[in-house]
């Protein structure tokens, strides 16, 4: 079983954050543990599975199939292009 510090260190790598200086690490890890305490109310709650699956708080509109965007329209909507090619800034120097 991982302890809180091990969890924090593993998660910070997964989140592509850190490495932190000791003081910052202590503070963030401490906050992380305190906030997890807040979540205990969910594990202590009675079974929520009867909430039903036919209800959504964030309903999406119906999907409607449409023809794909044309290359011409795509190129026109791009900040820089050359012919049918899209130009992007160089990111690796």
């Amino acid at each position, binding site marked *: 079983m991982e302890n809180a510090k091990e*969890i*924090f260190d593993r*998660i*910070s*790598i*997964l*989140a*592509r*954050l*850190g*490495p*932190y200086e000791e003081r*910052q690490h202590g*503070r*963030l890890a401490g*906050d*992380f543990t*305190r*906030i*997890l305490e*807040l*979540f*205990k*109310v*969910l*594990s202590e*709650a009675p079974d*929520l*599975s009867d*909430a*039903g*699956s036919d*209800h*959504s*708080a*964030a*309903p*999406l*509109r119906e999907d409607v199939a449409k023809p794909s965007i044309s290359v011409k329209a795509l190129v026109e909507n791009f*900040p820089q292009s050359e012919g049918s090619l899209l130009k992007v800034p160089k*990111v*690796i*120097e």
Partner: protein
Amino acid sequence: MSLIQEIVRRVKTGETSAVQMAQEYLGRIDALDGRIHAYLQVLKDRALSAAERIDEKRRRGEPVGRLAGVPIAIKDNMTLEGEATTCGSKILEGYRSTYTATAVKLLEAEDAVILGKTNLDEFAMGSSTENSAYGPTKNPWNPDCVPGGSSGGSAAAVACGMAAAALGSDTGGSIRQPASFCGVVGFKPTYGAVSRFGLVAFASSLDQIGPFAQSAADAALLFDVLSQADPQDSTCQVGGIPGGTISPNGASRPMRIGLPKEYLSHEGASPDILGAVQNAVNVFKKQGAVIKNITLPNTRLALAAYYIIAPSEASANLARFDGIRYGRRVQSLKPAPRHDTGSKVQSQQEESELVELYRRSRTEGFGAEVQRRILLGTFALSHGYYEAYYGKAQAARLAIAQDFDRAFQGVDFILAPTAPTAAFRIGEKANDPVAMYLSDIYTIPVNLAGIAGVSVPCGFSSSGLPIGLQILGPRGSDRKVLAAAGQFEQWTSRQYFSDPKGVK
């Protein structure tokens, strides 16, 4: 009273020009914003050019829009073509938007004048606007206090007349709570009622754009302009928001008001707040409303559910800010030049350098609260914890939404406090994230359920700070909710609206 209608009338009749109107508001920004810091960017030239175009249209006898010459501010997490969008974050320093958000386009199409972009908690994560990388906004009622957040800049700008209205975004209360703290009207529409295309995403299943205004009538007018279907936002409902009806209860029977015991007996609520809300309830009762005590039993799960769901979505939405795809790259580390030898060792080294670049760019670019939430979200979605946290939170969310559905079978509206306290002092909760999260305890359930909610001023604290009343309605009841807020304003003769005392 509609400030917007009055501005439009004056501009349309030529009593004043759009340029004069813009200059008046720009002058007020010049005079006040040094003390308040509501704006991150004032777009003086753009505003004056837009105003000149409106005046020219009028001179040529062409029709002008419903918002002709109305000076409006927008939260700096909405894009405006050619202008910076910082989201209050260092990581977006230097970024210029390549397109304009649909909500802003809709305002401009009705001849509104965009004055500038307002301060916010970084990526809209916070309840005080202290998390901005560009410094906090001050509350116009007392500059030692926060304006609320995350849309604190927009609320403060409207409160002290540095904009006639403003746009904000509300993921867990970020329009309603600052509206309450600054003594203005703040409206969170039904989820899906307003396009979020061009809004930098925080938590996509919760985010909603809405207006701040000096009256419910102004908020309703802005909502009419903003509530349009948009093919660029798949959640934006086509015809989902009924128009026309302005009667609060839509019928001749008395208005039925629900009072949820979970909101009115909360131990963290100050007596000032509970007293002001009770007075507001008495006003509704005196006007013939039927008051019913109701229960929303899963309210106690809301904070936990929200602080799992919102950070989970944020961790995914903000993954793109890594110094390569988006966002400022850390200066002191550059990926090594690629000399491909096909060696496995070289490939691992390059991968490790790239990951280090991602990590350092994100750690230097994001502030502490954003990092905290990305960490929480990554944890909740990670293997071994997903069901116990994210799965439970989603089930709790459904239970909360069903509580509201049941309640709205018996009542037209629910009244509740907007926040448990009036504005708190700058720095008071800055080092205590849990205390800060509790500021949104009354607003969060509304986002989880996707319903409509407005905060309207209903009183003052013992220290003279504004207090907001929340009026909630079921999905699609937006115009009725705003009409009820408008009636409350009339019944109370707008006595809770006044000029902020912290600025003269």
